[in-house]
């Protein structure tokens, strides 16, 4: 079993009186694809939001590569190696696909505003290198031909893929995908599953939220299930599919069970 890259320990997230996550503990291991599933409103996206620093957790701890990341500024978390996509696409519409990715690669640039202003060699070199790298990422995700199109004019499926390419642009160790297959037809889903595996094989670790069961069960190495903000299962896909609590969570508890 490979070592863990991200650990959530007893994480609780409260909004006022509402408990969105209750004592959630799980880990993501290096170079695996971990599926995170649960019924609507179970708290999946909240998990992403606490990992990326959008929300500050109420209790517990989150460690990434052995270091605590709670309370750290969001852009620093990204710089530290966690990148995400958004369930509702949030690209920068008035930039081209390539610019979207280059902006993400800026995360690791050494040159700042002043060296850019005076055209220092370090800045020029980085500009050139990152342009090449961004194009490579678009090609890797399979949307290289759209590089110079404005993001808002791209077809829906390409936008979803561009979200992934942009996240990869920040050069993450851990990639969080929030329903990357939403709105896809079956053929596109098969393509996407291939892409996700390809990403994993390229050395990234993936944490995947997805509604489509066959996709999650197909690509994930392990699956964590949450319901009402609590973890109810954490196992291999085949085992999770037959877990009694998971089936109850999705189908509802039979009346006579209680």
């Amino acid at each position, binding site marked *: 079993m490979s070592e863990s890259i991200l650990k959530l320990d007893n994480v609780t997230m409260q909004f006022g009186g509402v408990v969105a996550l209750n004592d959630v503990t799980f880990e993501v291991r290096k170079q695996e694809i971990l599926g995170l599933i649960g019924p609507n409103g179970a708290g999946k996206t909240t998990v992403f939001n606490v990992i990326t620093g959008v929300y500050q957790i109420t209790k517990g701890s989150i460690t990434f590569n052995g270091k605590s990341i709670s309370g750290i500024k969001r852009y620093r978390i990204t710089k530290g190696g966690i*990148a995400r996509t958004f369930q509702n696409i*949030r690209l920068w519409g008035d930039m081209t696909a390539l610019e979207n990715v280059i*902006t993400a690669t800026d995360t690791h640039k050494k040159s*700042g505003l002043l060296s850019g*202003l005076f055209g220092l060699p370090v800045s020029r070199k980085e500009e050139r290198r990152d342009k090449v790298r961004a194009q490579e990422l678009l090609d890797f995700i399979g949307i290289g031909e759209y590089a110079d199109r404005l993001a808002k*004019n791209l077809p829906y499926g390409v936008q979803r893929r561009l979200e992934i390419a942009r996240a990869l642009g920040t050069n993450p160790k851990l990639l969080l995908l929030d329903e990357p297959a939403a709105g896809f037809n079956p053929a596109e889903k098969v393509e996407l599953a291939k892409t996700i595996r390809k990403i994993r094989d390229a050395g990234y670790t993936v944490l995947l939220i997805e509604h489509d069961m066959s996709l999650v069960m197909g690509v994930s190495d392990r699956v964590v299930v949450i319901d009402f903000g609590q973890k109810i299962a954490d196992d291999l896909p085949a085992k999770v599919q037959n877990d009694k609590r998971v089936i109850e969570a999705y189908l509802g508890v039979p009346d006579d069970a209680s």
Partner: protein
Amino acid sequence: MFNLRDWGADVWERSSRPIRVLIALGAIAIAASLPLLGGTFLNTPVADYGSVLVFPVAIFVIMALGLNIVIGKSGLLDLGYVAFFAIGAYTMGLLGTKTGLNSWEILPIGIAMAMFAGLILGVPALRLRGDYLAIITLGFGEIVRITALNLNSIGGANGIVGIPTPPTVFGLEYTFDNHRLYFWTFLIIILLTIWMIRRLSVRRAGRAWESIRQDEDAAELMGVPTFRYKIWAFVLGASVGGAAGVLYASKTLFISPDNFTLQVSILILACVVFGGMGNIWGVILGAIILGYLPDRIRFISDARLLVFGAVLVLMMNLRPDGILPRKKREKALPGKNQNE
């Protein structure tokens, strides 16, 4: 539909380096010859053409370019921009009358003061967004004006008189009515500002601002240090405003708090909005038109602010991108499917 901005960008991109240099030099030459071209028909009822070209036109252009960094590039609505203008002007006024420093020596000090003020305001204000930022900056502009009004040590309501003109350069004398020389001086500042904005726009800073303008949360989650870049936008915008203030004071030789009301911020905002937020050429055009026309046409000059207010409402409702919008176009990709 024909789009002047896209046409211009096309010509530019298809040109080789020497031709670009030629185009740029030609444009500068035309701009520099503006004070020589005017006939008396361009005079306004209050002033002759040469003087209008310096103020308000050139000053408006500088300030609009500076405000454009804040509003157009980064999407931060700053309603207190006049404060930086005032700080530059007061730095010139105070140091010019009380120390032996001349305008050229004071210019960097004025810019530094304005940048410092931008930092002081930016750190608390830029934690807020949209509407709240607008209100806070508006308050800041008013605080600066009211402070100037109530502090007798800096002239109070009477302001500062007898500000010296810039010293002679290369035998050229800055006399009060040598409008051409002032215009050329201001043109240099305009060109420097354009150079700075263009340089930054294509690099990391430009992309960071653009991503902040379009979706700040997404930007931060993609590793853009949003706060730092917002501060930079503010401080750079302030530096341009401060420079404009120093130049203005050494041209008019007299300043008072009345020169720095909220209305100035609104006028400059109108220039930016009218011309096209985010596009420097549009902003320049907007500032020229709104700087010149209300002075030229008596009917408008009485109701100038009314017109500016109406410009804001109409532009936002009918053509929110201004008369020369920012880049919208995509590069043509030969052989790629373009008709979706």
